[in-house]
């Protein structure tokens, strides 16, 4: 039976061969929940009669969504997480350690071939690692904390092949914004997307994470990146689809003429070429999130801003994906370049992207952001307008005071 990557990984975890459409109960290799989802997960876990975790080594809690606590309600939820982690012996990443998905990958809590559950919709990010990451809600997560298992319907797969050399200034973010436009925000609902093609095989792990991460913006259960060319600091056995695996759709794109892409308010599928928006005045630029705040993203911004100053009246807020990334950027001089240019650094975490705190836009303000969603109200104010773009475009726009691309 020819299988997709999904069918292979799920079969391994179901202990029997499965194919798309089957319902399977699967063993899970690890779970994580954030301060946005842990409180309900812990509550459901206790209500299920949970006294101990199925495997405390495989459970991570991360305080990243509203970190450090902006008010007493959140402070008390964080306190509950710390108490739970002490009682149950599971891992806790406290404030400032970083964004959940970055931490799971950076610390190898999720590895190629794993089936991993995260109580966060961007859990598909692990598809960059050739792992099956599924975003679930708190109660599903609680059930796995108790049993080590979950149930799922084996998804069908859409195959996206991307060929062609990216033009200077074009990044994985532009590719994925383009693909979200092509498929639409519901285009992969209940399905998986596999990314393959010459463009993708040459991407860094960080860039692959951008693709897999935003497969969630197509509604996908997960996004699996072809492991060809994937470099990791440990050895692994890559899982490829069988050549005659079945796909619901197979789309091939040549992106050699692609220009930087921007998603306009209020949907990540509302994507146009930057050329249509050059000159749009902005007030606030945000470089952060599980999509784009890794070292290569900070480097892209520093390349644009080196020796320059932000446009008058524009603020640039940066939240590196993790403390490790911040420290690496500190050591190599990137932080100094960005700070000298006028950027403000905030705690590694999700804050502005989810509208928790640390950078809510004002009424009518225009934001250019390296994040993944520009839903109305996403950043905490339904009267703000959010545009999504690559880190280089965010930096160039902060410099110009309007949507702009980096000078060539």
């Amino acid at each position, binding site marked *: 039976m020819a299988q997709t990557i999904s069918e292979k990984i799920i079969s391994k975890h179901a202990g029997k061969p499965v194919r798309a459409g089957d*319902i399977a*109960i699967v063993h899970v290799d690890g779970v994580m929940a954030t*301060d*946005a*989802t842990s*409180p*309900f997960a812990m*509550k*459901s876990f206790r*209500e*299920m*009669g949970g006294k101990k975790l199925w495997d405390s080594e495989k459970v991570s809690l991360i305080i990243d*969504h*509203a970190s450090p606590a902006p008010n007493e*309600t*959140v402070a008390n*939820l964080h306190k509950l997480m710390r108490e739970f982690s002490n009682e149950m012996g599971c891992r806790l990443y406290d404030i400032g350690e970083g964004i959940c998905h970055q931490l799971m990958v950076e610390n190898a809590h999720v590895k190629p071939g794993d089936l991993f559950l*995260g*109580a*966060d*919709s961007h*859990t598909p990010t692990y598809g960059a690692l050739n792992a099956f990451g599924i*975003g*679930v*809600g*708190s*109660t*599903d997560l*609680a*059930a796995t904390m*108790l*049993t080590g*298992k*979950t*149930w799922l*319907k084996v998804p069908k797969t859409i195959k996206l092949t991307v060929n062609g050399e990216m033009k200077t200034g074009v990044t994985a973010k532009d590719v994925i914004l383009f693909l979200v436009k092509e498929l639409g*925000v*519901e285009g992969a*609902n*209940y399905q998986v997307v596999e990314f393959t093609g010459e463009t993708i095989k040459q991407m860094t792990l960080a860039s692959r994470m951008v693709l897999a991460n935003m497969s969630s913006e197509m*509604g996908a*259960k997960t996004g699996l990146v072809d492991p060809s060319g994937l470099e990791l600091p440990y050895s692994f056995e890559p899982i490829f689809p069988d050549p005659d695996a079945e796909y619901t759709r197979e789309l091939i794109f040549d992106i050699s003429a692609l220009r930087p892409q921007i998603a306009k308010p209020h*949907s990540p599928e509302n994507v146009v070429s930057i050329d249509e928006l050059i000159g749009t005045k902005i007030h606030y630029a945000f470089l952060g999130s599980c999509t784009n705040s890794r070292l290569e993203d900070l480097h892209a911004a520093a390349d644009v801003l080196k020796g320059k100053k932000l446009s008058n009246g524009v603020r640039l807020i940066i939240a590196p994906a993790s403390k490790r990334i911040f420290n690496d950027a500190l050591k190599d001089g990137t932080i100094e370049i960005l700070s000298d240019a006028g950027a403000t650094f905030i705690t590694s975490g999700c804050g502005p992207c*989810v*509208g*928790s705190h640390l950078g*809510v836009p004002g009424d009518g303000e225009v934001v250019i952001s390296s994040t993944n*969603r520009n*839903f*109305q*109200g*996403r950043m*905490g104010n*339904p009267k703000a307008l959010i545009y999504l773009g690559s880190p280089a475009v965010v930096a160039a726009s902060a410099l110009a005071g309007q949507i702009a691309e980096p000078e060539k």
Partner: protein
Amino acid sequence: MTAKERPQTKGRRPLLTKWSSVGGQKSETNNIMTHPTAHVYPVDNIDTDRIIPGKYTKTLDMSALASHVLEDLDPDFAKKVQQGDILVAANNFGCGSSREQAPIAIKASGISVVVAKTFARIFYRNAINIGLPVVEVEHHNIQSGDSISVDLENGLVTNHTRDETYQAARMPQQMIDILNAGGLVNYLVKHGDYV
């Protein structure tokens, strides 16, 4: 609209199943049965930020969640809804975040069933897991204010105002089992594991 002003339909009380009792009749006087009222938002891609903005999700207080439900879409929503009412939307309802606070806020507001053409997958699972029935109905003619009942067992949505019945998509058996248990917590209390 108060309960008294609701459109009323004469009818026999349907055979009670666990499911129809979730989405079905809420009051009965003699032979007069009132059905839940539909609140229709014929908009695609109503995302979780519009259902419950992220700034309100960091709480375990259900009533606080309910008071902000769908406020960026309709500031009066929470005030309009009465216990048992039905929410109707279009395609890809609940896309975006994995926040379970989204179905929780809807349920806490009094909504008993959500009907949509399609749901985003995480929302769909979350709703079932917390015991909020969700049904996918591709074709219907439900307008706001219509009097609706939902027979989840047979996947039928009845519009009493227009005297029409619509077929809903069938759920995987695993979900039916979870919903019949009243949600995933009760399912695991009962079974101790996935069965």
